[in-house]
């Protein structure tokens, strides 16, 4: 009896609140509160983005003021489309990201499956999670410099270790070979990010109702069946999140390849990523106009990749739903 009374009171007060809320409509308060956000957002976020677009239509060098630059229309974009260095930078970025993501997701998924297995009942999840995550918060500049000297072919600890263990008979020049250098950047990226991905996948898997698995085991399903028929479909939204955030971050990779070698993409342009190219065009070669066009090129590529991911994921989700209805 009491409970219903409370509920009525609560309902009444909500009604009163919403009435007052409408009354507040003409108040100036909200505009006052959002003013700092809006002002800074427009001046430090939107305006620079529009300015960058304007510069991408000029031959502005970045030195001596925009008034000395000419309006060139879409010339910078035409140059971008025909620029073999940009394509090289694009493919370098994709290669590094792809290898990194493959390693990262394999380890993270493996760990998440092991720790969520109901029969294994592994302990120490919190400790392992924290240890695996740790490389993620270390400043990338420090990580890059550390690996660039650990991998040095002359006095780097890795070669010294491999020589001591007689695994190699002469030092390997890890960062002088395009394939090896890209591989190392991908591997270091995976080392930094697999813990993060593991934590997210683990959260996703623990959200799947346990009776799904129990029912499957009773029906005699094996490990592979439960993985492909329950875990993967149920994890789809989380996997989408992991994939999208990873590709957006991956397309922007900068600090690590910049600091691993000479900052211009050595060896032989293998570590020249899109943002390194953007940075060098703008700030090393004084080509602000072209650098701005690269920024927009990167933006369009990001949108295209996100859209493709959404679409593929969404389409397969619809399929699953239809199958389920049958």
């Amino acid at each position, binding site marked *: 009896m009491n409970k219903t009374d409370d509920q009525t009171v609560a309902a009444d007060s909500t009604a009163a*609140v919403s009435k*007052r*809320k*409408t009354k*507040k*409509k003409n108040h100036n308060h*909200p*505009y006052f*509160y*959002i003013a*700092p*956000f*809006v002002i*800074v*957002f427009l001046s*430090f*976020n939107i*305006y*620079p983005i*529009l*300015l*960058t677009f304007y510069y991408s239509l000029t031959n502005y060098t970045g030195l001596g003021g925009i008034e000395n630059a000419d309006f060139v229309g879409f010339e910078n974009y035409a140059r971008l489309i025909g620029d073999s260095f940009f394509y090289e930078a694009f493919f370098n970025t994709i290669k590094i990201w792809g290898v990194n993501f493959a390693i990262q997701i394999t380890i993270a998924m493996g760990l998440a499956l092991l720790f969520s297995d109901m029969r*294994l009942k*592994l302990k120490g999840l*919190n400790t*392992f999670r*924290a*240890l*695996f*995550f*740790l*490389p993620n*918060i*270390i*400043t990338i500049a*420090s990580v890059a*410099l*550390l690996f660039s000297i*650990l991998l040095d072919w002359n*006095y780097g*600890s890795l070669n010294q270790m491999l020589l*001591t263990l007689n695994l190699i008979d002469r030092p390997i020049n890890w960062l002088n070979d395009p394939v090896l250098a890209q591989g190392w950047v991908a591997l270091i990226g995976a080392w930094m990010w697999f813990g*993060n991905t593991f*934590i*997210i996948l683990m*959260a*996703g898997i623990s959200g799947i109702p346990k009776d799904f698995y129990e029912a499957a085991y009773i029906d005699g399903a094996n490990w592979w069946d439960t993985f492909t028929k329950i875990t993967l479909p149920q994890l789809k939204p*989380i996997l989408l999140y992991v994939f999208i955030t990873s590709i957006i971050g991956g397309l922007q990779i*900068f*600090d690590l390849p910049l*600091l691993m070698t000479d900052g211009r993409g050595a060896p032989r342009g293998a570590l020249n990523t899109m*943002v390194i190219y953007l*940075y060098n065009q*703008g*700030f090393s070669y004084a080509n602000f106009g072209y*650098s*701005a066009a690269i*920024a927009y090129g990167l*933006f369009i590529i990001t*949108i295209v990749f996100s859209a493709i991911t959404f679409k593929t994921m969404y389409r397969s989700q619809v399929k699953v739903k239809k199958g389920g209805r049958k």
Partner: protein
Amino acid sequence: MGKIKTARGVIYFFLVLLVIICFIPFYMMIINATRSNSEILRGFTLIPGNALMDNYDILNSYINIWIGFRNSLIIAVSVTVLNSYFSALTAFALVVYEFKAKNVIFITFIVMMMVPGQLGLIGLYDLASTFGILDTYWPLIIPAIAAPFTVFFFRQFLITTMPMSILESGRIDGASETYMFHRLVLPILMPAIATMGIFTFIGSWNNFLFPLVIIRSPRLYTLPIMIRQLQGSPVASNLGAIYLGIAISVVPIMIAFLFLSKYIISSITAGAVKG
């Protein structure tokens, strides 16, 4: 049952192996930071040397890494405070009031979360140069006032946790709206502020591209920019000193992480599940 036990043993073995692989780079860094240049050139070992203080003197004669620390700390703390406070204020306005621009702002947020930060790099550099704030911390700190993702996160948090009736009773008691924001809403938001605050702090601490473009004077260098200066500097010829420089930039973060790991990990989970 025995089978499961063996499997468990094998898995633990591989997990520990993975932890070791993860930490070898850091271990080598610390060991080499205590060894002299000639010892490092001679070969590798897992046992610490006794050249730590010499390495520190060599490093210190060239670069004062603690200045980088201080600078990074000033920026990261300012960014985190501004980001938390103004995002909370904006989220408060979006949740509590009805007003015209509300939907426009909300849609802009969603769009802006997709835009890569580099898109405005050239424009921001030029804006800073026009305002004469190039080579200062302002272009690195002020943008923190407008952080769409944090506002979005706080908004979701307020919608699910703040009962409107608190504000109502506050109004009846004659409290001003601003007073209520500080005394009622901010405390309710605290868990969300802690979550986003840690991320904002780490993001600012590790930020590389923008300080690289904005900061010119060595005395204003942030830690990552200082680390970059170590590469190819005279000190780079002394490996022990350079390992020590890297170690100084890394170890305090590792120690802080030990204390905060629980919060950090739960906030990644929250971000993923909500996002």
